[in-house]
């Protein structure tokens, strides 16, 4: 049992922090937020020159793709190293992850050729995936998906629609789940494809979220202003676009999603507001009526802080299991219940600490901390829905973790 880090790990953290101080400048962050100094416009979400330069520098330090094998351009490092580096960059507002579960899936299920093609480019950020799983009628129940990939002689023809393909307008590829065998049981006829977004027949339609107009400040929980619908009309792709075996896509996707659940980003989005409100209270304590002097508010803040620690500790537990090469029974699901619900609880508790200031969005005069608390109210609950709802996670804890039985038949209430 060891809750600390080795001197080497601490030195690495220091190194990362020094790098951030030197390189993650206000200009870089302004560009990240679409506020280029030269006033030029880019498609939202696509990196500008300063961000490109920053990622190049981070790459040269060996901090991109840390856990990926060296033969595919990674560092062959461990997940804890990745965790330390990622946490600090995330706190500084820079995402050094490879963007979801696509890259792990390629590594786990790709052909040698696919791995050699995709992984190095994903690490160098020349390729990026958007996630093409969810559909209008297949959300929590993903296996209900209808998007068809009909086999042809030399490949497949894709027809269908994907929802909430968040970075579809800026990604180079889509990591797509589609049905290759409509006759098979619903989990057995699904395959995964890696498809360039410029393939003819793909159309991306923006879906603006309630975080649009005004946009949420960086670091807001589910602060995305835009997501997309992506339509496939007779999209012809070669056989080589298939990832893993045909009709075995469900298992590949699920395994990679589980991997994606461990890491710094998942818990950080749920605890940033805890830090923010404590720091705000500390810095805004004029007079005896300041919220910081109110014992009821102090009590609530301490309660939230404890819960935030549990978020952190559950993440450390998951990291420890992964480091040891173990497998989760229910620990990943527990993290995925606790952290999002905590994030919502903190967000809502803060509204009552800030009172009318809590409603002011980013573009408002008098907005508190650039409106991050108000925008968080708009977004926090999304983290309990996406990538496995808290309801489904609790089902999994109960059934897989605790061995509780499935329901036999319709229940008749007394």
């Amino acid at each position: 049992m060891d809750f600390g880090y080795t001197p080497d790990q601490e030195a690495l953290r220091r190194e990362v922090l020094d790098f951030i101080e030197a390189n993650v400048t206000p200009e870089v962050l302004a560009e990240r937020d679409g506020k280029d100094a030269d006033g030029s416009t880019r498609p939202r979400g696509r990196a500008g020159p300063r961000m490109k330069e920053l990622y190049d520098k981070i790459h040269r330090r060996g901090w991109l793709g840390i856990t990926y094998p060296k033969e595919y351009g990674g560092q062959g490092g461990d997940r804890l190293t990745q965790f330390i580096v990622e946490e600090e960059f995330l706190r500084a507002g820079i995402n050094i992850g490879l963007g979801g579960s696509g890259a792990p899936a390629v590594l786990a299920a790709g052909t040698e050729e696919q791995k050699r093609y995709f992984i190095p480019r994903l690490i160098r950020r020349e390729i990026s995936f958007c996630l093409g799983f969810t559909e209008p009628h297949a959300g929590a129940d993903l296996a209900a998906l209808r998007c068809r990939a009909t086999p042809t002689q030399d490949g497949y023809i894709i027809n269908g629609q994907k929802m909430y393909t968040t970075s579809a307008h800026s990604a180079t590829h889509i990591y797509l789940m589609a049905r290759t065998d409509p006759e098979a049981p619903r989990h057995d006829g699904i395959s995964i494809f890696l498809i360039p977004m410029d393939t003819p027949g793909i159309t991306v339609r923006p879906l603006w979220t309630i975080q649009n107009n005004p946009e949420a400040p960086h670091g807001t929980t589910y602060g995305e202003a835009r997501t997309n619908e992506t339509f496939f009309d007779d999209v012809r792709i070669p056989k080589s676009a298939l990832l893993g075996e045909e009709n075995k896509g469900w298992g590949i996707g699920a395994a990679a999603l589980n991997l994606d659940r461990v890491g710094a980003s998942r818990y950080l989005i749920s605890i940033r507001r805890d830090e923010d409100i404590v720091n705000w209270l500390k810095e805004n304590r004029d007079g005896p009526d300041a919220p910081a002097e109110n014992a009821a508010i102090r009590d609530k803040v301490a309660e939230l802080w404890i819960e935030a620690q549990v978020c952190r500790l559950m993440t450390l537990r998951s990291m420890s299991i992964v480091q040891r090469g173990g497998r989760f029974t229910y620990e990943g699901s527990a993290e995925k219940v606790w952290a999002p619900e905590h994030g919502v609880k903190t967000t809502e508790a803060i509204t009552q600490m800030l009172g009318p200031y809590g409603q002011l969005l980013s573009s408002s005069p008098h907005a508190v901390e650039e409106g991050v608390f108000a925008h968080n109210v708009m977004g926090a609950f999304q983290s309990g829905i996406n990538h496995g709802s808290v309801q489904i996670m609790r089902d999994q804890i109960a059934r897989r973790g605790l061995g509780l039985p499935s329901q036999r038949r319709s229940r008749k209430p007394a």
Partner: protein
Amino acid sequence: MDVLLTEEQDMIRTAAREFLEGECTTKLVRDMEADPVGYPPGLWKKAAELGWQGMCLPEDYGGSGLPLVYLGLVLQEVGRAVAPLPLHSTTVAALTIARDGTEAQRQAILPAVVRGEMVLTWAITERDGRHFNPAIETTAVVEGDEVVINGTKLFVDNFPAADHCLVACRTGEGLSLFLVDTRSPGISQRSLVTTAKDRQSEVIFKDVRVPVASRIGPLNEAGPIIEVMLDRASVLLCAQMLGATRKDAEMAIDYAKMREAFGQPIGAFQSVQHMCADMIIWIDGGELLTYEALWRMDQGLPHSVEVSQAKAFCNDRCEAVVRNAQIIHGGIGFMMEFDLHLWFRRVSSWTMRLGTSYEHRARIAKALIDLPGRVILGRPVPVVMEETREEELRRSA
């Protein structure tokens, strides 16, 4: 004792609902979010024809003189439709003028309000954002038969639409309340951008001159008038909030019946069922608390504890309901083009206004714990601030 609506009350509510279902589309709601003034004068006028603005104003000025409960029912429907009408700020200010204004002020304001030709608001809170006993730094200095107002108010409702505004100012010894024409020289405003996307403003008063005669109530002693006004405002906001929250919950329940996952409607899962059951329990609870507070006001009974009970409960529970409605909707509720957020964003905003849960609960605790005598639930709680309707009527007569 019968806490259900009377037939007449139910009729008024149903009429309001049907009217707004016909007149207030979500397109109108969205249009008004983008509109700098923020309300449709045509609809405002129609509301006046239905008697909404004058519902609780004295009959002498064209009103219907009905109890406040009726206005609460109408505001529930306004909330249900998230109707962009400045009814809440107008009626709260008008009721204060009716109760504490001079005959001349009533004559100047109330008939126009009743006819739907005037919009009112008030400006109390300043930068400390507090609801009870806010630190008021705006000053009003008497110069001859005028006062000169200087200061900055925050979170003022509907200012771009308002003709007059009740402004609380420090006047030497105490607080005074003035009825100020919003077009007076020296007044400027900045729009705040809120989750509700309503029209809230920062209003800056720079050497604004108004006649001394424009004060409401005695000089330096406006504190109790303001407290009564804010209590009315709080409980009426609860009504509006509950109307919106119930509609929001109904949309979620309907969605749960329709949306399928794992081969059945998501509403067939016990976890979703229990979530929905709780939502309805919470809304009902808030409604009962709100009705009781309104009823006590109408009876001239002490009501400060009851108002705070309603607002603290609604703050917490309405927020939880609209969040759960979002959760039941999954991703779609997060999309701008889907309507659900129109309710979610407004209810969220309202929970943060007119007193936080902490502020209201502190007031309740004071009444429960700091006053002498044992408490019994359902019996009169010792009183923090007392004002009987008889007194009110006497003063407004």
